[in-house]
């Protein structure tokens, strides 16, 4: 399953809810303001790195760049472009957007 999160983890609880529900082997794609969670130094960094042991974590590159965060991506996070976003949706049987 592909989980998609688009809200900042320091503003809303959707990332936390997602990580609690995502089962081993699932993919989590961070887009829009959720990409801050995939960057170094933030409060969510430890959660993302811990989650990366059981989940595949992706972040949308254009959203990172638009937020000045392209050079701060955490190790273990895979950066994808829009084509990669489409591939992820196509590869997974189902998607859940944590709006």
């Amino acid at each position, binding site marked *: 399953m592909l989980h998609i999160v*688009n*809200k*900042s983890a*320091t*503003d809303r609880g959707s990332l936390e809810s997602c990580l609690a529900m995502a089962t081993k082997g699932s993919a989590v794609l961070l887009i*829009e*303001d959720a990409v*801050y969670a995939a*960057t*170094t*130094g*933030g*409060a969510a*960094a430890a959660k993302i790195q811990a989650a990366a042991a059981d989940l595949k974590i992706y972040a949308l*590159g*254009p*959203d990172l*760049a*638009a*937020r*000045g*965060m*392209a*050079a*701060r991506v955490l190790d273990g996070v895979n950066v994808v*472009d829009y084509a990669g976003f489409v591939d992820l949706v196509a590869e997974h049987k189902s998607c859940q957007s944590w709006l």
Partner: protein
Amino acid sequence: MSDMDEMEDGSGIVKKFMFLNRKAPHGTVYALEGLEVVLITAAFDQDVSMVFTDDGVYQLLKGIDTKGIEVKDFSKTYRALDGYDIEKLYVDQSSIDARGLTEDDLIVDVTVLSVSEMANLMAEQDVVISF
């Protein structure tokens, strides 16, 4: 400072306006809209302070490149505020700390305040507008 200062030419009253920015850029329209309102307020010669707390500190990051998401990059506008006599920019220390940021990561010169200093600044305003 008194709450209100009559302008010498008597053309109006100057109030202390605080614009409180608490949202990250791009994910919502708040940051851009807040900036537009600040520029309008400046045209009326008001005493404007811009405050960045919580995710609002992300608005001021260097190195923003919005080409990939095809929206306006308004981050350069913060550097132009000076030209509109908006020179009071404040950032909450705990908010940048919590996000692994430092003053050097910001696109403009700001005054970094502790929570209690920020609280005092807020308390002395005539008007607080939140974005």
